[in-house]
């Protein structure tokens, strides 16, 4: 099935409580599939088409504030609209899942696939010092798997998680194994798991307040320090990546999401020419697998970072390896997906046999 349809099945099967969204290409199938599957009749999950992306993310904020497992999905221009709400969710220390099936920008851009939202997803996006846990699927199966993983991480760390997919993974059809249907948590289970949540002072408990406002600077600093400590813990424990043939390689390609598959094909083409290439595929874009990239890069002659953008993740790769070896970028813009041959050419021209600038 399509990546976007798979997301809809996965979110129901996870036992999620609510989905709030607004149509935008190339991810409208998520909402369409959910409406078709009518989970409110089976698991009791709420599905609502909001009046805007802004309303949808604030519904997610409200749902998350009540302890429920809720998500939204959109694509790049819509994700920009959601940034205010995402900042509030992060600041209020709430778990939520946000899917971005990203498309080419800036502006209204194109409906074709792109990875140009890497900066927005990993460097904050909205205002303030915060991070999202960002998962980058490269297959439809990972789209499915990351719904559960994203929710689990969001609840474990009380922080929003984002699946940063692109139009390729969203629209592509692949065989998937769906997880077993999990029951939704009962209200009692929600109250037990989330004693901080706003869902009524049952039993006369003290009132809960979800707010990101603190006018007293010294207290606001403490809140920020708590968030930063959480991010440090996430960086320490939740970094995920995949390596293919990095040990025996002379060169590395670092790529995430759908383009990592094209890079893997380029690696095979390179091997036919006697060029030994290893692949590092960051799965968590934040926390970025800095140490893994640095370790994989040891002794390598050069690194090509392949992205469907003008060069974003390359900054994190350069920070990981410092200036120990050449790190170059190759990407296509505007929704164009390069062929494996183009990637191989770029590797040869930029890294293996770089032309003199003079």
């Amino acid at each position, binding site marked *: 099935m399509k990546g976007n349809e798979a997301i809809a099945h996965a979110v129901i099967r996870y036992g999620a*409580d*609510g989905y*709030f969204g607004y149509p935008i290409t190339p991810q409208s199938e998520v909402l369409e599939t959910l409406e078709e599957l009518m989970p409110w009749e089976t698991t009791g999950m*709420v599905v*609502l088409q*909001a*009046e*805007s992306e*802004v*309303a*949808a993310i*604030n*519904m*997610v*904020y*409200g*749902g998350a*504030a*009540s302890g*429920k497992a*809720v998500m939204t999905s959109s694509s790049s221009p819509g994700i920009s609209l959601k940034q*205010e*709400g995402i900042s*509030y969710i992060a600041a209020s220390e709430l778990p939520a899942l946000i899917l971005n099936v990203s498309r080419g920008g800036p502006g209204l851009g194109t409906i074709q696939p792109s990875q140009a939202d890497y900066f927005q997803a990993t460097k904050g996006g909205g205002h303030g010092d915060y991070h999202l846990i960002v998962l980058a699927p490269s297959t439809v199966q990972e789209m499915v798997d990351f719904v559960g993983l994203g929710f689990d991480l969001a609840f474990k760390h009380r922080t929003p998680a984002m699946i940063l997919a692109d139009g390729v993974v969203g629209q592509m059809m692949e065989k998937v194994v769906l997880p077993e249907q999990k029951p939704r948590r009962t*209200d009692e289970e929600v109250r037990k798991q989330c004693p901080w949540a*706003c*869902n*009524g*002072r*049952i*039993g*006369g408990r003290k*009132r*809960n*307040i*979800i*707010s*990101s*406002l603190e006018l007293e600077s010294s207290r606001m600093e403490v809140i920020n320090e708590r968030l930063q400590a959480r991010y440090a813990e996430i960086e320490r424990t939740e970094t995920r990546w995949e390596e293919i043939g990095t040990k025996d390689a002379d060169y590395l390609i670092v790529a995430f999401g759908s383009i990592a598959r094209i890079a893997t094909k380029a690696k095979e083409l390179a091997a036919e020419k006697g060029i030994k290439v290893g692949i590092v595929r960051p799965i968590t874009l934040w926390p970025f697998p800095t140490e893994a990239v640095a370790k994989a890069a040891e002794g390598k002659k050069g690194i090509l970072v392949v992205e469907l953008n003008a060069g974003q993740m390359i900054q994190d790769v350069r920070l990981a390896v410092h200036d120990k070896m050449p790190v170059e970028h190759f990407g296509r813009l505007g929704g164009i997906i390069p062929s494996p041959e183009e990637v191989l050419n770029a590797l040869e021209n930029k890294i293996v046999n770089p032309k003199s600038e003079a």
Partner: protein
Amino acid sequence: MNLCDTMELEEIIREENKVYAVPELLDQSVHMHYCPGCSHGVVHKLISEVIAELGITDHTVGVSPVGCAVFAYNYIDVDWVEAAHGRAPAVATALNRLWPENVVFTYQGDGDMSAIGTAESIHAANRGENIVMVFVNNAIYGMTGGQMAPTTLIGQKTATTPYGRRVDLNGHPLEITNLMPLLDGTCYVTRQSVHTPAAARKTKACLKKAFENAIAKRGTSVVEVVATCNSGWKMSPEKANEWMAEHMFKVYPLGDLKDTTKEQ
């Protein structure tokens, strides 16, 4: 002869002699930040009384706005979610849909309801979310220092209309509550005030009806409270009440605008 001349103080202060008490749900451990003379305190009191009288304290959730009432969560002793500016109805939508047995109300100012949150307010009401929207309209942005609101009157001076609001420059006062009865999702729309004890009692009855509608899942109830901001208006509390009665009630006349419970 003074009563105190013949009775000890302890004899007077007794439960059976009590004629007034601060509502149980108004948290007495915190000092309210509202200016003396502000209408918010009275509205908070009425909401606190209604929630307690309806016996819904343990399953009521409030959504506070950005604006002077942002700290409502510090005062009324129920669960609260603080929304981004204008987004309270969207937040309330999810809170209620995911916990349909809970009673959810928003507390919104004129900026929240009729400027930045117009879309969320209209659409929540149009969907007929089973919530109460309390709309405190004081025709000015109090918290940010007295700038023009959509509901600011023509000729009214604010920090951003220092020579008075002009139609050609600033457009007309937005009577957003007048739009609400047109939406099929609303069951009850009323405009009240709290400038006299009688008006406050009337508003309390209206709030009670609105909360009863939410409990009975009749749709969206909108209770506008035409209110004073004596600090923002730069008037004494008494003068502000007079000015409101003289000028604001002409543009925002008090009374029910829609009540489907009467038809049933």
